[in-house]
């Protein structure tokens, strides 16, 4: 492989423009200069787009906690910062949504079930999201605190959900339907990707990401769902069907990549969400602090990072200990 340290002049120039554009420090003259540079050579536009992409990628890696992995990043403790970082930096972090691959997928605790035969139970403990490949080429991703039992039989593939939330990416096999049982609901699939949420009260939600799924609630006609459809089957009350946007479907599946979208939640709600994934609790004693709103997509494995971002956004104080992160007013 080539030495990454040997960098072409074009790549370097593109990186320079990308960093300047990203920092919003371009003067009108520089902006004109950038436009002229892009127009000067057909390769420049692509090199610039690539440099902007790489810059966003590294911002995201940082937001997902890459610093924890670097030995001497600790040599620069936050206390060394003379002025507080500008508010813009914070909002930029918050605005970085979605994932660059599953960077936070270190949470995965997949177990080799490839040679799976007969029936067995899979579960994801607190703080883990677990993706498991099944013998037929399908894959099951379990959110924290989820338990399913899997039975691969010659004529059908059957999953029983005992609790929690799971995503199914189903390998196409019309001869062997893929059946998921969640509470009183039975979902029959041919080849697709869908999410099932089963609450402690027995409410079931099914969201189809790709393909088609047939959902049958006890005592009701089977309903055929297509990509983007959501059906809610409450333990009591009537069934509700709705069409979701692609963005909403993506957002609902974020936990699979070790992320969650906390936009619109209060700090207290966000702290409760983190309790699902981490033993390091976010503690908020002041109810007024707990009512503050948060926005953005965050790594489920980094409650401290989230608390820092929230503190910067709202001017709060963060006190950390081994098992807790306390947010309070300054």
């Amino acid at each position, binding site marked *: 492989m080539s030495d990454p340290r040997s960098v072409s002049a074009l790549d370097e120039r593109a990186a320079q423009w990308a960093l300047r554009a990203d920092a919003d420090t371009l003067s009108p003259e520089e902006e004109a200069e950038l436009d002229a540079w892009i127009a000067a050579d057909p390769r420049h536009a*692509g090199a610039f787009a690539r440099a902007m992409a790489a*810059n966003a990628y590294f911002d995201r890696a940082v937001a997902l906690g890459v610093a924890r992995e670097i030995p001497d990043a600790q040599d620069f403790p936050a206390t060394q910062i003379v002025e507080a970082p500008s508010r813009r930096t914070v909002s930029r972090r918050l605005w970085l949504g979605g994932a660059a691959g599953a960077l936070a997928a270190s949470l995965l605790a997949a177990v080799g079930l490839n040679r799976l035969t007969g029936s067995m139970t899979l579960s994801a403990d607190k703080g883990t999201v677990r993706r498991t490949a099944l013998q037929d080429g399908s894959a099951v991703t379990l959110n924290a605190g989820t338990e399913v039992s899997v039975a691969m039989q010659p004529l059908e593939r059957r999953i029983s959900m005992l609790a929690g939330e799971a995503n199914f990416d189903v390998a196409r096999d019309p001869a062997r339907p893929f059946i998921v049982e969640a509470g009183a609901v039975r979902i029959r699939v041919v080849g697709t990707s869908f999410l099932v949420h089963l609450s402690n009260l027995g409410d079931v939600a099914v969201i189809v990401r790709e393909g088609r799924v047939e959902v049958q609630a006890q005592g009701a006609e089977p309903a055929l769902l297509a990509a983007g459809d959501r059906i809610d089957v409450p333990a009591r009350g009537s069934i509700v069907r709705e069409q979701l946007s692609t963005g909403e479907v993506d957002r609902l599946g974020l936990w699979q990549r070790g992320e969650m979208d906390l936009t619109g939640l209060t700090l207290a709600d966000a702290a409760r969400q983190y309790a699902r994934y981490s033993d390091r609790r976010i503690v908020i004693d002041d109810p007024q602090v707990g009512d503050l709103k948060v926005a953005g997509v965050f790594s489920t494995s980094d409650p401290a990072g989230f608390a820092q971002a929230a503190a910067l956004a709202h001017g709060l104080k963060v006190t950390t200990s081994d098992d807790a992160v306390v947010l309070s007013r300054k």
Partner: protein
Amino acid sequence: MSFSRERAVWLGRNVFPHEAALRQWLSARAASAGLEVDDVVQETYAILASIERVDHIRNARTYMFEVAKSVVLQSLRRARIVTIDVQANAQVLDIPEDAPTPERVVADRQELSQVSAAIAALPERCREVFTLRKIQGLSQRQVAQSLGIAESTVEKHMVKAMAILTNAIGRGGNVRDASSSPRDQQTDNDTRERSPQRERA
């Protein structure tokens, strides 16, 4: 700026992570068509940056490969370098499936440590500047003050750092060799979970 911040984020999230795979896929094919891989990759980015919408793209990796493929095919048609018919070439250009194989899952898990290894392998001054600027979130001026160097020097190191990191991840440069961290030698066992100590480290 010629395209939106949102698009840059979309590219960073969905396209850049697959650039090394695209280059690998292209290396045999583009060369046989007399094309430079760099040129095809840049053209692919230029197209992805300029298309009006991306929200309809479900699988960005496949889409990126499709765009690169059309770039290759178009230059073949334009240049008429070869006598073989384009259809035959199109088959050589079959796009690999992106099934979530176990290897792929492992690859995702390694991504973060690959990035941190690349950062750790930066020349010292570049790494310092990158850490202060990107990880600590200091402005260029604050970095200059805290290291006692000129702002232009900060920019120079930062540009160098970004270009090297972009190469390391985008071209699949051999970051592992450049890093001496023993953690990289560890095989990522499927059942191994992140220990709480590492979490806080």
